[in-house]
């Protein structure tokens, strides 16, 4: 559905307030610093990305799955559902909503097993992926409830393509799109998809791409946009901060420690 963003549940319910978001995370931020929290989400966004690529999903589906994941934990602590279960559940649900088709249960579980074993052993060591189809299906109901059935997510990719088309009337440069597209992908590792409308994220990604490519001559194009430049600057800063963080961060070394620190679900009390 390429309907009207302004009337969508995305706009009306899921553009969150920064302060509210921060407040709802207090439980988790008692155990993790803000940076550690971000690194944990960075890691699970990678899991979703790799799972999606293995399952040959389009980037749009992967992005939607990632947003589901972030929306769930925007309202709930990491301890409520093990993120290692929620991540594939988000992929499973998003692929149905985006009309990719249903991924067969067995294929999903097998893919999870291989991906965890082959690509994320630095985080999970010798542990196998512990969940089965029935876990995913149960989790899916909880996910849908917590999303309040808001399943259509608007992504920055479409507005990005439109902006680039418009830019092309002035400057012919295919690199701009390539860069900006990747920056949008990277933005999924931050909170911007919870805080800003997708078209603003698209403009911010374009902005960063133009700076990287030294496209001074596009300044007038940005100046003519009728958009809140303060918001664009906030998004740009968030994404640049991510890049700064990556420079000095070695996930392979740190992630096991971080995963050990996140609040875990508690089982039913023993009788």
């Amino acid at each position, binding site marked *: *559905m390429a309907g009207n963003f302004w009337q969508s549940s995305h706009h009306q319910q899921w553009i969150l307030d920064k302060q509210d978001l921060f407040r709802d995370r207090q439980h988790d931020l008692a155990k993790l610093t803000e940076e550690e929290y971000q690194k944990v989400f960075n890691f699970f966004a990678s899991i979703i990305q790799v799972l999606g690529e293995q399952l040959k999903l389009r980037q749009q589906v992967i992005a939607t799955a990632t947003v589901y994941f972030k929306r769930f934990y925007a309202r709930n602590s990491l301890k409520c*559902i093990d993120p290692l279960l929620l991540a594939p559940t988000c992929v499973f649900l998003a692929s149905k909503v985006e009309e990719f088709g249903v991924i067969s249960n067995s294929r999903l579980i097998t893919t999870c097993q291989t991906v965890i074993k082959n690509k994320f052993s630095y985080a999970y060591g010798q542990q196998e992926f512990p969940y089965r189809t*029935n876990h995913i299906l149960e989790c899916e109901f909880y996910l849908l409830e917590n999303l309040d059935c*808001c399943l*259509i997510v608007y992504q920055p990719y479409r507005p990005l393509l439109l902006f680039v088309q418009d830019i092309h009337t002035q400057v012919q440069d295919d690199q701009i799109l390539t860069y900006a597209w990747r920056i949008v992908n990277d933005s999924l590792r931050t909170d911007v998809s919870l805080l800003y409308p997708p078209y603003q994220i698209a403009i911010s990604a374009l902005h960063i791409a133009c700076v990287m490519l030294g496209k001074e001559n596009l300044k007038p194009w940005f100046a003519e946009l009728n958009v809140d430049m303060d918001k664009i600057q906030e998004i740009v800063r968030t994404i640049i901060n991510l890049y700064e963080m990556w420079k000095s961060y070695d996930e392979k070394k740190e992630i096991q420690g971080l995963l050990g620190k996140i609040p*875990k679900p508690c089982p039913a009390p023993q009788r």
Partner: protein
Amino acid sequence: MADNFQNKTMASVMMDYEFKMKTQNERSKVEDLFDYEGCKVGRGTYGHVYKARRKDGSDTKDYALKQIEGTGLSMSACREIALLRELKHSNVINLIRVFLSHTDRKVWLLFDYAEHDLWHIIKFHRAAKANKKSVMVPKGMVKSLLYQILDGIHYLHSNWVLHRDLKPANILVMGEGPERGRVKIADMGFARLFNAPLKPLADLDPVVVTFWYRAPELLLGARHYTKAIDIWAIGCIFAELLTSEPIFHCRQEDIKTSNPYHHDQLDRIFNVMGFPQEKDWEDIRKMPEHATLVKDFKRSNYQNCSLSKYMDRHKIKPDSKAFSLLQRLLLMDPNRRITSEQAMQDPYFSEDPLPTQDVFAGCPIPYPKREFLTDDDQDDKSDSKARQNQQQQQPNTQQNQVQANNHDHAANNAKRMRMSGQNQGNNTGGGGQQEFHQQQQMMFGGQQQGSSNQQQGNFQQRF
């Protein structure tokens, strides 16, 4: 749910107990909030629909509760929830709420209740016609219906949602109440994939998908659903409203094949419309099944066929505004077919009588209310209410036969909502209903063309 074995080996708990309990306590169950047992009004490939009332009496409105077929979240359930959650238009069915039943993994959708639909309305008119009786409806009713259908579809299309399964049974009309006589488009074909438009609703779908409303390009193998395909279906519905006959009625067999090409249906279309001229539909040569078409059909067989002749036989004059709009909706070339927006601008709608918000224009509604269905496959849970229904219903054998044999007219079979005396007591138009009750019996009584063919028999009578 994480079983012990896994807990031991992985030391992982999938879900926090406290979180689970808290969500469980906050979750409302459909059976706690609504009364609906014994009140089934529809069943089909999509699942079961019940007429429901709130238990707490906070309002006395009727609701429609749809229990989606199967368990869990199929792709069609996901698409339906995802899209209906976003769509808001007075002529599109409004999803009020979703219930997820964790114990039996059933998904329930809550809607406003629509007392009527075009399948029943047209059937009522056919029955009256067969008995040489007239039904009193406002002059502009067909126009109002068509206008609201177009309005709803225009909204869907401008949101890039294609209906993909428009037919009379999916066009609902609100009964008495604040939205009296308002069209509600329902049951979008959410499950159809873009690249396999003709795949019947998975393999769980044993019932026939009706081909009568299917655009010629689909029958010739078009790979994608388009807005124009919805427009063709609206044209078919318009014609059917004007004449009470399905314009492209065709004998139907089990369509379990994935092949979209359907000889008899195309033959029927050409018999009404005439065989398309090259100049009228240039791209017909590019259709995947064009070679088959050339092989199977002879233009000369349809020399004397045209839409104007067909409609003229049904007393719709070729120089009327209704006819000229119909012709623009039913253009064979999908590229020339008009859009919903253009259709709404057609002079037909600015000519007297003007379309009204209440399609019944304040006049009494002549159509009976929906009757409750019995559960053929009822388990021991079946309550006395349901048994009562069974007793009140007309010869049950007939219903079972129709169901047992889904070779015929199964679109109707799927949507089979029986009408007649059930609700006479609380219907102001009770007298009229009584009459219809009899009419229906006569209608069926007059058809002895094979026990499983009662419904189709009605159509065959005229062709």
